[in-house]
């Protein structure tokens, strides 16, 4: 008995939804789309949060866009250490990305990155 009643109520609800959609197609579909977009961002937010909460993903690598100052700030490396490296390679310390400094001074970015990582490793080993 109650199943039949539930079925009847459910049918009524469905009819109402269909009727609302028929009478206000633009409003109803906008609502559905906005709701879907919200869900999409919620899911993405969860995925990214899980991804970045893994410490392995958080340990960033030295990359082209970083400046010498940014490297020293991010790895808690004394500025003098990185300045000493740049001096030994005859590179100017500038407010430019290391990719650009390497390009402008005819040294490969990979080589410069390796050298910087070696300085970081040496500094950490001494800590």
């Amino acid at each position, binding site marked *: 008995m109650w199943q039949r009643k539930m079925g009847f109520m459910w049918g009524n609800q469905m009819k109402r939804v269909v009727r609302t959609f028929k009478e206000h197609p633009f*409003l109803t579909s906008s609502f559905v789309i906005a709701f879907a977009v919200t869900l999409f961002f919620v899911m993405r937010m969860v995925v990214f949060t899980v991804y970045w909460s893994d410490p392995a993903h958080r340990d960033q690598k030295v990359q082209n866009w970083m400046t010498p100052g940014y490297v020293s700030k991010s790895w808690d490396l004394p500025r003098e250490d990185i300045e000493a490296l740049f001096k030994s390679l005859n590179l100017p310390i500038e407010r430019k990305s290391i990719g650009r400094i390497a390009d402008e001074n005819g040294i490969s970015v990979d080589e410069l990155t390796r050298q910087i990582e070696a300085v970081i490793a040496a500094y950490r080993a001494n800590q």
Partner: protein
Amino acid sequence: MIDSVLELVPKYGLYIVVMSTFLSCLAVPIPSSLIMLTAGAFVASGDLSGFGAATLALVGAVVGDQVGYAIGRSASGVLDRLRGKAAVMVSKARNLTQTHGGIAVFSSRWLFSPLGPYMNLVTGAAQMNWFRFTIWGVAGEIVWVTIYLGAGYIFASQIEAIASIGSNISGVLAAGIVTIGLGQWLRAVVKADPRTK
């Protein structure tokens, strides 16, 4: 994608800060939040001036808002010529901006920032008082600049993580508030229907 944006900031410095905040207020799809976070990180590393970044970001955003508002305002004449049901809706919208426009402008600068550019056009078209628009707008942009530059400064070494999580949070908030608004509108429509018990 994030990497190429990160490259631009040390290359163009404060120019990119002012241009991105200006253009993003006009709905040009520019990752201005990411640029602001990156600028904050480069302030922390001593590559950018903090005062310069904050001032230019604010100037870019406020001028962008004004241009958006002016475009909306110039279209408001068209709305005046509407008749019938459309005219009723326009007058309703104008009343709504007079009562709630301030808080809508303020919160769409930072909390629901993806909606900001459209809010400029709508409030302009609805002829919201210019002075009120400007006061609330500037206040909201100050909050926005502080949050993004500040987050970039504090989380300088985690810039990619902050940027990707942050952009999703603003997506959830903006899409969420639109969904709630449309949902309430839909509810009002269904309730007004005499066949609904």
